[in-house]
């Protein structure tokens, strides 16, 4: 089977330079994304998981060029995104959309829902007002909102309903790729399931591929075909969802899976909770960035950086002890 590559990311880096302090000659850059590579196939859902500060949202924004990358290459359907001019990029954004975590801060509070949903069409040159309104109505229906929401304002909607508006806006222009940045984290449990189901339905109906960013491993397992685990700006493990959850290899992945509170209390999991916090990305530990918290580290981990290597078909791990 030949699966089409939709998005190819090669050695993507995004370093932020902190503001120079008085009399300081130079300050260390914050390596938010520090050389990550992956491929997203057509029709696939790839999960990007990690703790806050690991750079997962920066990946999302850099991919869509909402912020400019430091270096690296991203090609979307064969087009090199970073070589495009601003206007060309804007045209291509039709094909790649984003859903944000907080639905309230991602819509204009002074505009009615109907207007918010017509905006993508207006921006991309559809001038027929009546047609646009009609399309906005169809979008409402597609995401399971009643037609009378058309004239309401964002504050009149609950978080779950407003996230549906965010999703409707993202699918308006029939994108090939949707980057979903923690789309259900701000929602209540009973609403999370509704929104996840909606995203799954749309995937089948509209043939969308997702890059799904989340810190919730339970949701990711449910939703994603493949999973990439990030730590301090790097991918430490990348594999099929099944491999990640059934035979995690990287000690960080294992710790993450162990830390999830389980509904069955007293299940037989060994409690090896990691000590300490995620290190400062401006001053990451030498060698493998995880060695400062790793329960199985060796001498070489403090000196050399492990590469992401394939240890089984489709299963990539960046850890010396698993190579």
């Amino acid at each position, binding site marked *: 089977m030949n699966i089409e590559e939709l998005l190819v990311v090669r050695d993507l880096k995004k370093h932020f330079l902190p503001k120079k302090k008085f009399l300081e000659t130079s300050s260390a850059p914050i390596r938010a994304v520090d050389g990550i590579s992956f491929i997203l196939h057509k029709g696939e859902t790839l999960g990007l998981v990690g*703790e*806050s500060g690991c750079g997962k949202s920066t990946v999302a924004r850099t991919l869509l060029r909402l912020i400019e990358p430091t270096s690296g290459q991203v090609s979307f359907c064969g087009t090199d995104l970073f070589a495009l001019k601003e206007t060309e990029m804007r045209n291509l954004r039709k094909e790649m959309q984003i859903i944000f975590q907080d639905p309230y801060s991602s819509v204009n509070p002074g505009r009615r829902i109907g207007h918010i949903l017509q905006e993508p069409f207006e921006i991309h040159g559809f001038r027929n007002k009546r047609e646009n309104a009609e399309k906005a109505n169809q979008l409402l229906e597609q995401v399971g909102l009643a037609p009378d929401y058309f004239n309401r304002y964002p504050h009149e909607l*609950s978080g*779950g*309903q407003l996230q549906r508006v965010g999703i409707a806006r993202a699918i308006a222009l029939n994108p090939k790729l949707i980057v979903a940045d923690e789309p259900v984290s701000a929602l*209540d*449990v*009973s*609403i*999370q*399931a*509704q929104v*996840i*189901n909606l995203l*799954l339905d749309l995937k*089948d109906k509209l043939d969308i591929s997702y890059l799904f960013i989340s*810190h919730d*491993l*339970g*949701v990711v*397992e*449910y*939703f994603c075909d493949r999973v990439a685990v990030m730590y301090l700006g790097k991918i430490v493990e990348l594999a099929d969802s*099944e491999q990640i*959850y059934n035979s995690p290899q990287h000690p960080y992945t294992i*710790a*993450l*899976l*162990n*830390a*999830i*509170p*389980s*509904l*069955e*209390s*007293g299940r037989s999991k060994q*409690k090896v*909770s*990691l*000590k*300490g*916090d*995620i290190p400062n990305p401006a001053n990451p530990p030498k060698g493998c960035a995880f060695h400062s918290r790793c329960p199985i580290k060796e001498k070489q981990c403090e000196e050399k950086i492990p590469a992401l290597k394939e240890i089984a078909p489709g299963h990539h791990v960046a850890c010396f002890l698993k190579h």
Partner: protein
Amino acid sequence: MSSPELEIQNLTVSFSTTKGKLIAVNGISFHLNPGETLALVGESGCGKTVSALSILRLLPEPPAEILSGKIIFDGQDLLSLRAKVLQDLRGHSISMIFQDPTTSLNPVLTVGEQIAETLLRHTAMNRREALQKSADLLSRVELPSPKEKLQYYPHQLSGGMRQRVMIAMALACSPRVLIADEPTTALDVLIQAQILELLRSLKKETSILIITHDLGVVAEIAQRVLVMYAGEIVESGPAKALLKNPFHPYTKGLIASIPKLGTKKRPGARLEEIPGNVPSLDQRPSGCPFHPRCSWAMEICKTQNPQLRMIEAQRQVSCHLEPGSL
């Protein structure tokens, strides 16, 4: 059986808004036993935080107003106490930790000063003793190099460390009751696991009322659970039994809608969901507040709000259905 550490009787809290007086907590009663960890679970807006804040009278009144109820602690009703007396209780016999450690700490005072403040207010310690004790508390909550950390300002600490400082402050006077309002919600899973472990280790020292929306957290830490919906307790019972075999359709739906780790999905499988939305306070449905979202709803549910009734030992549910018929 020993008498409960804290007892809440028929608590009703309302808020005055432009839409009139809205009931946020509707006549709830529960108790916290000595040495127990009790979880109050529910989605946003169900009244769990309002209930917790009422215990120490921390709600701004107005707009909030406690319409009825008693909160019995140490043989007296906290709601009838004068502000001054209540002040002596807060942080001393009953203390609280909040969801967001960043906004709960004073950004311009060092960690040491903030912990010592509690001790200076409630004990006869002098400043030096209070700072020494603060360092002990920081090592109790497993903050590395506690002596140094006393000099730190909150912004120099990570979220997990700040929450440890909050817990150290709450523990300063060895309170009999610790109220923890979503203590791990703002934290990453790995840090959450650490904080839960810390809270678990406190069980011997204090009774804990933990407020959370996360049933996983409940399973990890609580002995008993109260499930709230639209300002009412809809189900209560021992954590293990309740999570394994919920009686109320809402509890059942809540448990089912969580993607569980290790349950291999079938391709194209959907998550079970609870239809509809959490009702807002001004649109409280008639009868059982859950009936518009309940797939078992009967005629009677539309008009009559079921009472919380005992089903089996320690298990209560407010539902018209026969227990076990889900």
